[in-house]
């Protein structure tokens, strides 16, 4: 099953140039029905088989990291949520954790109830994100009934999120020093009820996925990523777990409520067929687990305040905050300088880590399967486009030069000598 299907066509005996076997290039994106976001993939194909795939990122570059330096910490929470609309909460958790770790140097500690509420919202977000992905994947393989059904069930989670935070997408529930809103008894009862329904529905979908031929025939043996390759290319999140690697930041480097007694009932879900099917199963099982965690957290919610007023200035520190986003490991690096604004904020997102794996997965697959393979890592390009690559006009000869100051000066003199009429 796991064998790669690279087919080499022998050259025909006639010397005609037109019949010579050669690779063809197919551009995919930036505007493409399969991709919801602007992203470009250059597929080199031999007949129907993809030989090489080159991702080209950067269409969603908005300059968020530079903007973050001009805003205060609580303003930055609003900004950082807009990095990605699907996993908005986990970005704000990362920044809040980083800020509170820096404030911890002065003895500041956020209340326990707030940490539990944050964890509940992040698990709810994982549920809605994975169901969303499941629907999109079903749409990519042409199973639109499942797409509609799963998105109908996603609305339950969206209702809960709207109920407890007031918004469907950007929840804005975090604040440096706690959370903005508390959970009431009525909300907790409603969440328990909805979680039960979601678990029931998801168990049904898992059954369908394991038995239904429509899904199995389109996903098994496609987009294979062997564990050794996944390790070599630094795959993260469900993509790595579907290749049998036991990686999960919630377990390996626990934060918030994961560091508490929740760790005892925590399961890291892996599956070992290494293909798209494996990723479907891992995500479905993760949703059921996440529902159980939400129920556990609600049952063990500690009492106390949800917000303690933090000091306005954050002491000088370099903080690396790691969290498990729905797509994998998310890293926020914060450099504070004893003011109310960060000196530097660097964000590294899971899709950036997985994009090389996708290029590897696409090799040897058919063109028709390229969309589901692309979708299988749950790409979120709006997360990752925070880097600029300098690319020549010929895309394949991408080159980034590191010039010294003298070389740069020389280059600028030459350039201005060539372009004398150039004005600002």
């Amino acid at each position, binding site marked *: 099953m796991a064998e790669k299907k690279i087919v080499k066509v022998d050259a025909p005996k006639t010397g005609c140039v037109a019949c010579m076997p050669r690779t063809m290039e197919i551009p995919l994106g*930036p*505007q*493409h*029905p399969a991709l*919801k*976001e*602007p992203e470009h993939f250059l597929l080199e194909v031999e007949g129907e088989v993809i030989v090489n795939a080159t991702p080209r990122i*950067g*269409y*969603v*570059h*908005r*300059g*968020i990291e*530079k*903007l973050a330096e*001009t805003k205060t910490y609580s303003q930055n929470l*609003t*900004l950082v949520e*807009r*990095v*990605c*609309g*699907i996993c*908005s909460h986990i970005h704000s958790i990362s920044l809040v954790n980083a800020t509170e770790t820096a404030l911890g140097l002065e003895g500041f500690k956020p209340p326990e109830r707030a940490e539990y509420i944050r964890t509940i919202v992040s698990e709810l977000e994982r549920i809605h994100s994975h169901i*969303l992905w499941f*629907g999109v994947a079903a749409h990519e393989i042409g199973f639109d009934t499942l*797409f*509609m*059904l799963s*998105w*109908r069930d996603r*609305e339950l989670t969206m209702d809960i999120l709207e109920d407890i935070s007031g918004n*469907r*997408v*950007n929840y804005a529930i975090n604040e440096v020093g706690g959370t903005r809103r508390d959970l009431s008894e009525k909300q907790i009862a409603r969440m328990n009820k909805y979680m039960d329904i979601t678990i029931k529905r998801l168990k049904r979908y898992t059954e369908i996925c394991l038995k239904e031929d429509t899904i199995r025939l389109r996903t098994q043996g496609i987009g294979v990523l062997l564990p050794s390759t996944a390790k070599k290319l630094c795959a993260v999140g469900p993509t790595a777990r579907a290749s049998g690697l036991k990686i999960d930041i919630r377990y390996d480097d626990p934060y918030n409520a994961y560091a508490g007694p929740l760790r005892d009932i925590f399961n890291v879900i892996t599956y070992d067929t290494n293909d798209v099917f494996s990723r479907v199963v891992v995500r479905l099982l993760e949703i059921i687990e996440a529902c159980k965690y939400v129920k556990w957290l609600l049952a063990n919610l500690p009492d106390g305040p949800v917000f303690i007023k933090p000091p306005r200035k954050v002491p000088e520190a370099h903080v690396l905050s790691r969290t498990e986003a729905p797509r994998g490991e998310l890293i926020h690096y914060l450099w504070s300088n004893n003011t109310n604004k960060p000196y530097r904020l660097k964000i590294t997102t899971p899709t950036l880590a997985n994009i090389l794996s996708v290029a590897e997965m696409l090799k040897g697959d058919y063109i028709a399967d390229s969309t589901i393979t692309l979708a299988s890592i749950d790409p*979120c390009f*709006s997360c990752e*486009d925070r880097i600029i690559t300098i690319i020549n006009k010929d895309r394949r000869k991408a080159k980034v030069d590191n010039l010294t100051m003298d070389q740069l000066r020389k280059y600028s003199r030459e350039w201005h000598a060539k372009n004398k009429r150039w004005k600002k």
Partner: protein
Amino acid sequence: MVLKKIVNKIVTWSRVKSPWILHINTGGCNGCDIEVVDVLTPRYDVERFGIVIQGSPRHADVLVVTGPATQQMKSRLKLLYEQTPEPKFVVAVGACACSGGIFRHSYIPNLGIDTVIPVDVYIPGCPPKPEAIIFGIAQLLAKLQGLETPVIDPSNIDLKRNQLEALDKKKEVATTE
């Protein structure tokens, strides 16, 4: 004359009954895109208005654009607009698409899509709720039928007016006390 009138009526009717949309993301954060897809799913079910998402700009009547039109997407957005056959309508979904939103003051000018292509309907919100998107599309359909729609000219909005009024009120309170 009568025939022309009847033909016009039929054309407008068919346009209103089946607007096919093309969804373009010009560098948004995915929030609006998910809400646009959400509108098509069972709870909101916008297909009852005859709206179908199309993959190609050649088949589309309405461009639903999200995102602040980043530097790299500007030329592509223009290209997509030129490829769409006449008559074409543009709906800007979300604060980013309307004005650049939170990314407006970035070092790259993300000023919203109306700096690139003409826009018919603006739907503000970060992100707008599915109900708001449906309302926006309904406004577009009303516009096609020639009904009256609310028009707000952004150049006429005085952003500081409210602040000044509030200041005046404060002063009045202070003087009366």
